[in-house]
Each structure stands twice: as C-alpha cells, then as structure tokens.
C-alpha cells in the first residue's frame, strides 16, 4: 500500500548509537526482556492497522514498574523516542513504532493484583487482558463492563491508552467511566499514583486526562477498575428491517422513549452475510438491516422492556423478530457480531472507520456513507454501536492494489469529514493513532490543538512519547 501518512524523521543521533543503546537497556532489564534482533523485532513492526510498518530500534519487555521507570529514565536522558504497546490490537496504528524508537511492551506485566469485592474494585497490572478481569471476578458475580471486540487479546493498559469502548457501553460507559486509578511512570522515570478506591481525588482529574491519551503522557503499569454486579439475566434479540433507514430511526425512537438497553448493535446486509457465513449465528438473510438489542435484568424486567421495544420496532415495520432461546443462542448472536472485523478480513482487506454521530443524523450519515463509497467504486459493510451513534463502516478493498488502497483511504477521509459535519467526531473508541492524525483539523481549530499540545508538553516537553501520533506533524510547538 502506498503511504500517505508521514512519520517523523528518525533521529540520526539515536540510530548511530543503536548498539550502545541496546547494551545499556539490556543492563536495565532481566535476561530475555530485550529484543533487538531482526527476526524478533518483526512482530512489533505494526499493530492491527496493518497498512503501515516500521521496525523499531529495540523492544523492551519489563516485568516491573521499576524496570519501566529505568527504561524511561534512560530514554528520556538520551532523547530516545518510546512507543508503549499492550497487545498490539490498535485499529488506528497507536502502537506502530518508528525506526529510532524503543517499544515498551507491557505483556509480561499480566498479574491480577487484587480483587476487592467489598469495594467493587480490581487492581491489575497493565498487561492483563480485558477479558481476564471479568473472568477473575466472574465466579463471585461481578464483571468489568467495557468490552471491546478484541477483549480476548487486548490489555487494560491499551484500553486506557485508547479509552476503549465496546458493545455494552451504552449502559455502562467506556473505559474512562470505569477507571478508578492508575499507577504510571512519567517519561523522566518518576512513578506516580493517581486516583484509587477513594473516588474523586481533589486536584486536576489526571486519571481522566491520561485515559485516552494514546501513550503520550506516560506509561500506565497498574490500573484500578470498577467491578459491577452481573445482572440477573441478559437476552439479545434480533430485529430485521427492510431498510437501514427504518432500523436507524427505530434506534432513535427506542432511546427517545427513555429505554436504555445494555446494547444496540447495527448491521447492514453485507455485514449480516459476512458474519452469518462465519458464525452461523442464525441472523436473518432476507433483511436489509439488523439490530441486536440486548436487555438485562430479571425475567419480568426483560419482558417489560422487550414489550416496549417490540412495539417501537413494529411502528418502524420490523420484518423479523428473533429472541435467543438459550445461553448458547445468545452467545452465538454475540459471536457473530464480535467477529465481524475478523470475518470481514476473510473475504477482503478493509479499513475500519470509527466516527460517532448524533443519533438524529444516523440515517442520513448511513445513506451518505453508501453513496461516498460507491462513488469511489468500492463496497462497504456497516456494523456498529447504534445506541451511541458510534459507526464502523468497513471499506472493502484490495491491499495489493495501490490505487484501490488510495481510493479506500480517500473514501474513509470523506466519511470522517461527514461525521464531523453532522455534529460528530472522528473517532469514538479506536483512537486517533496515526490513521486519523492528519484529519484532526477537521474537528479542531489550531487554537484547540495548541491547547491540547501545551497540556501534552506538561508531561513530555521534548515530544518523545509515541511522537508520531495524534497531533498533525505540522504546527507542533518547538520541543
């Protein structure tokens, strides 16, 4: 694929000292925690945003906060860029390194430190996977709410970096609403603790600022997160419609009626076909759009809520309604949805957009998205979190055809511009990373960006932490 997104020029002074740096870092880390050979570095050249690749200078895999601190202190002293990495599942290129950077991977810090049911909090190391937290608390009837589709692999550290969402955030909020505190290492090696089980610490909400800062303010090594009591029951129901518009306005009406299901997921026909072929989830194939609405609570509560939702769906001409009859069926319904990106990857290359729009704009943006992509001669599958307006058009293309790739990227940019014009934003849960960096001016004025960058500089004045990401390369303050 042709590269239209630029990286910062590698620092020659750093590249020249490569061997010396590797030797020094090896002294700071336990045996086997530093990767510097070409074969070993290869898996770290990109993340789930596969279009861009850079082999880093070295990869450090520390086992303790102290080791993270030692590595950062060293890199800060010698002006070496650092790219933090969790599981490398970023869809926006947040973890893609650069040639002069040391990747600090948290994968070895994967211990659950404390499950405190009395205070409904779990404290875990940053490399613990999202799903592991829910599994650790599950036997006692609790879970951790944000559930990105990659939850089997993605780490809580990465979730904090991107302020990740998921299908069930409509009711429970995203990472920032479920994060109580962090231990983090600043770039100069200072270790600080922010927040914790006592809520709303005085002073600036640094936990809130760090969440979603894409590894640019420091490296989080431990997190304390909120646990929630599992509902009595949960039931996903499928609603099939003859048009995307009907499904879109049904969503708006459900919310307007004051009903907040735990999730409302949307799929259009191409997405339904792709997911059904992969998961055999029992999705209806004779409809143009599908909603998965999940309600939870006691049997009586779910019944009551579903009655109201069905009534609204009927007003919008719903064609098929299918309730899951067993836990197995419910699991299959979610398996189909959560494997949407992977299943799409089986039939074509794709880029995944992540814009969010106000609910009233959903139908309009869906229609325009179809027109935009068709205008570039490409196909699109839509599968997304409809309840909160977070859209994920998947633009299908051929990664080996440079022209096709360029068209896909251009279509994506047009779609994101559309989202901003409709009152929304560039990214709802995947992060800016490298992918949307150069589009930031669609959403923010230079003064807005300057203020964000000034706040960033309070943490990392020399722009060495994940430096090629988030902010357009031009117009940055002099380091």
């Amino acid at each position, binding site marked *: 694929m042709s590269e239209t997104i630029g990286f910062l020029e590698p620092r020659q002074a750093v590249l020249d000292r490569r061997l010396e740096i590797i030797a020094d870092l090896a002294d700071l880390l336990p045996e086997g925690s530093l990767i510097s050979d070409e074969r070993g570095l290869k898996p770290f050249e990109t993340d789930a945003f596969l279009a861009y690749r850079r082999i880093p200078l070295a990869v450090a895999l520390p086992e303790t906060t102290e080791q993270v601190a030692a590595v950062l202190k060293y890199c800060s002293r010698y002006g070496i860029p650092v790219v933090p990495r969790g599981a490398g599942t970023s869809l926006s290129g947040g973890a893609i390194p650069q040639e002069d950077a040391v990747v600090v991977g948290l994968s070895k810090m994967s211990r659950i430190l404390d499950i405190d049911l009395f*205070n409904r909090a779990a404290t875990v190391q940053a490399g613990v996977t999202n799903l592991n937290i829910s599994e650790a608390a599950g036997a006692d009837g609790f879970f951790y709410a944000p559930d990105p589709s990659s939850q089997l692999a993605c780490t809580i550290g990465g979730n904090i970096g991107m*302020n990740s969402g998921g299908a069930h955030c409509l009711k429970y909020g995203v990472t920032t609403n479920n994060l109580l505190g962090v231990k983090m290492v600043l770039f100069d090696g200072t270790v600080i603790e922010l927040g914790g089980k006592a809520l709303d610490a005085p*002073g600036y909400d640094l936990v809130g600022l760090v969440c979603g*800062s894409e590894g640019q303010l420091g490296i989080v090594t431990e997190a304390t997160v909120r646990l929630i009591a599992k509902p009595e029951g949960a039931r996903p129901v499928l609603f099939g419609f003859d048009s995307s518009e009907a499904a879109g306005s049904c969503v708006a009406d459900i919310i307007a009626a004051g009903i907040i299901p735990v999730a409302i997921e949307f799929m259009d026909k191409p997405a339904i076909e792709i997911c059904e072929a992969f998961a055999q989830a029992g999705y209806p194939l004779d409809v143009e759009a599908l909603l998965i609405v999940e309600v939870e609570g006691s049997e009586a*509560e779910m019944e009551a809520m579903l009655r109201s939702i069905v009534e609204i769906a009927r007003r919008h001409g719903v064609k098929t309604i299918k309730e899951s009859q067993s836990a197995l069926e419910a699991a299959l319904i979610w398996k189909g949805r959560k494997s949407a990106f992977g299943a799409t990857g089986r039939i074509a290359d794709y880029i995944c957009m992540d814009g969010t729009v106000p609910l009233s704009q959903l139908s309009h943006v869906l229609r325009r998205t179809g027109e935009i992509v068709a205008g570039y001669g490409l196909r699109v599958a839509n599968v997304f979190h409809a309840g909160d307006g977070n859209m994920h058009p998947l633009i299908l293309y051929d990664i080996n055809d440079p022209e096709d790739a360029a068209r896909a990227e251009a279509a994506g940019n047009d779609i994101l511009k559309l989202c901003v014009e409709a009152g929304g934003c560039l990214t*709802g*849960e995947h992060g800016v990373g490298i992918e949307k960096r150069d589009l*930031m001016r669609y959403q923010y004025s230079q003064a807005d960006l300057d203020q964000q960058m000034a*706040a960033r500089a309070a943490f990392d004045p020399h722009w060495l932490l994940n430096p090629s990401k988030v902010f357009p390369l031009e117009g940055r303050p002099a380091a």
Partner: protein
Amino acid sequence: MIVHFEPPSEEGIASVVRSASAERVALSIVGGGTRTGLGNPVRAARTLSTRRLSGIVTYNPSEMTMSALAGTPLSEIEAALEAKGQMLSFEPMDHRPVFGTSGEPTIGGVFAANVSGPRRYVAGAARDSLLGLRFINGRGEAIKAGGRVMKNVTGLDLVKLLAGSHGTLGILTEVTFKVLPSPPAAATVVVSGLNDAEAAAVMAEAMAQPAEVSGAAHLPESVRGRVIDGALPEGAATVLRLEGLADSVALRAQGLSEAIARFGPVSQLDTAQTKRLWADIRDVKPYADGTTRPLWRVSVAPSAGHQLVAALRLQTGVDAYYDWQGGLVWLRMEADPEAELLRRYVRAVGGGHATLLRAGEDERARIPAFEPQPAAVAQLSERLRASFDPSRIFNPGRLAAIA
C-alpha cells in the same frame, strides 16, 4: 476595592481575561456564587462572573444531550429536563444549605466543581456526564473540547481535565452534557438499628445483589432524626435506594429486603419519601445547621469508612454519616477541625482524601481545604496549569495545597 465584571458574551469574557493577563491582575471566577466556600479562599482584585452568559442552547431529548451557556441557572436546566421526563443522572449537591448562601447555582459552576451526588458509583460524577465544552484559557483564547456525542476519543480529553478544576485552568462558557430518563418510580429499603460496621456489611451484601442499588447510605442514630423531618423508624438507619419502572422497583425491593432481613428490621419508603430522603443526604441536611462548625467531606474506600470514624472517636468529638454510593463520609467536628489527625488516619486506613468543606474564617486561612498531594503530582499539576493560564490569573490560591 474589588472590581466586578459580568460580560454578556464569550467574547466579553475573553476580553476581560486578555486585559487581566496583560496587567497580571488576578481574577476570581464565579458563577452563581453559591459554592464560593469550596476550596481555599481566593485573593483577587477583580471578580468575573459568567452569570449573564445564560440560556439553553440546544436540547434534544431523543439524543439525551443538552448544551447550555455556563451561567444558565441549574433550576432552569432541571425544569427543562423535568418537562421531558429527563434528569441529570449525577444529581449535583446543592451547597446552599451547608454554606448558608443564597442565589442561583449555575450549570457552569456544577461542572467546574465536579459536583455530584449519591448516585456517584453507578451513574458517575458530573465529569462522566460532561461531553463537551467551550472555555476561555488564560491567554484569552476561546477553546473547544469534546463534542456532543456519547463516545469521543478524538485527542486529549480536556473535558475531564476542566471538570473539577475550580476555574483554575479556564473559564467555562458553554457545556454539553448527557442526560438520562428519570426513573418513574423509586423506593428505599431501610434496615434499622445497625452499628456502623454492621451497616457496612449490609451495604456490601446489597451491592453484590443484581438489584441495581442506586444509593446507599448509613445514618447513625444521631443523624437519623435530622432527615425527612424525623420520619425514618427508630434507631440508626441503613438506607438503600432502588429506581426504575414501578413493577421492577417493587420486585427488586422485595428481593433485596429478603436478602438482608437477617441483619435487622426492614421497612420501605415510597417514591415521594425516597426523593426527599436522598435530597437531604445529598445536600448534607443533617449538618446544615447554620453554623460554621468544621465539616469534612472524606473520601475513602467504602470498607474503610467506619474504621476511620471509630478511630477518630477515640481522639475527638465527631459526628458522622456515610454516603457510600457517593463514596463519602461526612464528618462534623465538635470543636477543632483536627486536620492533621484526620488526614493521618485517612492514610492509615488505606488512603483517600479529606476536604475541609466548611470552617470558620481563621481555620480556613490556616488549613488547606484539599488534601496535599505528593510532590511529583503537584509539580505536574502546576506545569499543566501553566499550560492553560501562564500568567496565573485564574482563581489564585483556590487549589493552594495542590498546585
């Protein structure tokens, strides 16, 4: 003499800021002025109020979002929401009763101080509902952050940073926030006669139930009679709030009552009584006594609250009640604020923070209102502050122990 400015526009505010910045004159930033007792006293030659920057800009009930100018009275916002069956889910505390202030709280003040209530644990603080804002920074520039959609991770989250910054980073001019449907029914399950430690156990038990408890508090006997005109049954009251559709609330209340019946006598309050009770708990009615007797707002892990109070009682005269879903212990001291003792004990029970909410003028001048922070965090906060307000003109001293 203190000069007072009340510009009617965002540009007017920016222009007052630009002159103050050029002259390096400090500005005290206020909304309705009902919460000026929060934090340390500010010394400034000029006051800048957002009061005239008032009005709801957009309200779209079907999207569950509202935008309003910062000086809009909270009462106006709540009335508009109520007309559509919606509410601010974080139920902001009204500080007028404890501070003995009058006037109208503004929506800007609510977010600037991150004012929340007893639904804190389940619905979040004010900052969790705040989606976007406009503010004037210390250079007099108008800055936009966030937006009007529920999910937004585009760039650094300055929205969270500004919420609760007490006007020291920027002057909020417009806020966009999430609203939620008001629950049509509510009930409170009351367990009577428990001591503080037993009550904590009941609370933990209740939270582990799928009953969706949206408020949990313990009012010891000394406090019980000072809410809803003494209508709670005899003995200390451990209260658990349930909200939602009427049928569902009734079912859950029954289930919860059965689950905790072994702890003590259980009774229930209806929707109307529940509303009043939780407003009293939220607004610290038991200690809204027209005095300036020292009042502390203490945040520790819920399991540590009663340990802290028990330890303090051995040393000094203290009255306390627990708002667990707000994550708080409210402490009224008999005489001295006992700041050092209290803060030492907070550290001893596992950490947290004690905020001196109310005290006499001498004591407020002497005791930092907010828990002092570790040096590294304080330095970072100061650098952050300088990146917004380089000439340090906004509310100097307000967060004194912090930055």
